């Protein structure tokens, strides 16, 4: 279970959520039932993953309100494209692939409209905690990474996926994922030092 530090604020749940919860069915079994149109299966999958997907999208986009809209798009996509789910594939990976695609599409649209990601970072509410400054530094540093680096780092560090899983989610090679992660982490550390040095 996720550990709650502040009301409404969480650290990520990186437990292997594809595994069946105690006494429950696995995500894959629920997805199979959802394919047959079972509403309760959708409710169960939503219950398990909605919050994690919302937090993933918030980190990915730097904007909690947009992340809420994209969480809805992600779960509507699960329903609309449930015929595309391949039996035997990890549901969690499929879900994160959908969320990543939705985020990429959103960022492309924003870029087309001339918006800049680091300007959006301010729309993330600040927690009333002594760590707020450090949290803000992480957000700002993440926003300054390239989209490809941020995508890999959030999936790796926050969603707790392995590089092989990320390669599957992003439909690219494992080596490319590792290179992006390595460069991204290095750049992130530089940026964190820079951002914190300015304060």
């Amino acid at each position: 279970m996720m550990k709650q530090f502040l009301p409404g604020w969480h650290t990520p749940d990186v437990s292997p959520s594809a595994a069946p919860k105690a006494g429950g069915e696995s995500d894959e079994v629920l997805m199979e039932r959802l394919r047959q149109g079972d509403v309760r299966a959708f409710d169960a999958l939503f219950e398990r993953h909605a919050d994690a997907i919302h937090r993933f999208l918030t980190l990915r986009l730097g904007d909690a309100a947009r992340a809420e809209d994209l969480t809805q798009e992600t779960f509507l996509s699960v329903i609309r494209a449930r015929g595309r789910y391949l039996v035997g594939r990890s549901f969690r990976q499929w879900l994160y692939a959908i969320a990543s695609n939705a985020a990429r599409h959103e960022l492309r649209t924003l870029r087309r409209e001339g918006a800049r990601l680091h300007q959006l970072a301010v729309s993330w509410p600040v927690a009333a905690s002594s760590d707020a400054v450090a949290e803000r530094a992480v957000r700002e540093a993440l926003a300054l990474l390239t989209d490809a680096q941020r995508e890999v780092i959030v999936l790796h560090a926050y969603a707790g996926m392995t590089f092989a899983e990320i390669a599957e989610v992003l439909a690219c090679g494992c080596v490319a994922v590792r290179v992006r992660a390595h460069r991204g982490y290095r750049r992130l550390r530089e940026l964190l030092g820079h951002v914190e040095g300015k304060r």
Partner: protein
Amino acid sequence: MNIRCTRALDALEDPRAFAALQPHLETCAECRALVEAHARVRNARTPSLDADAGIRIRNAGRAELAAAGRARPWWVGALALVVVMLGVGIAGAVLMPRENLASPALQIVVGALLAMAILAGCWTALSPRRRWTALALAAALVSAAAVVSGGSGLYPAWAGAFWEAGVRCARAVVLYALPSCAAALLLQRRAAFSPARALAAGLAAGAAGALALHPHCPIGQAGHLALFHVLPWFAVAAALVLFQRRLPRRSFAP
């Protein structure tokens, strides 16, 4: 960057390997920076989903599920796309006057290769798996080579001037590809944009145009076939990729 740095990246995924890496971390500033950056993101706290928003999204999902019929597997769409594209290509080939001066056997071989390119393209365009992309591209390239090399080599005088006849052929390829493009756009909106899949759909649509035109065109010179049969076919594919990139999607599923 030395090899230990790469191992530090691997060790992030394995607590035991990470523990074994501790002595290295004490001496390698670069690895320490990497591990620290990972920890900062790993421990970042983010706002959880608002309860009201959660209920709203769940209700939207339930409504969507109630409105949707039974889920159809992806290959039903792929078959529908094959029917549309092959239908257009074969209808054009059969209904228009046959003026190709190449031998009927050669025309059948080229037609069969174009049909294969359509099949491979449609399958790749809608398959959630990635492994078909190379097959679709190879099928398109082989059939394009067959179109260019499978002509009669003749240029009858009554066919018209080079550019005039060429523009007529290019226009026919594009016009015959349009219904296929429309069908591909409709079906591919159900998944996230993928350049490879969009390209496969475009190549299949262009192949349908080339299939419709091939038995009709009396000009068998390689230059004409490459410039006015194959080039418009590939241009259709490129246009479909560019167009799809901006198209709103109904789903972001891979």
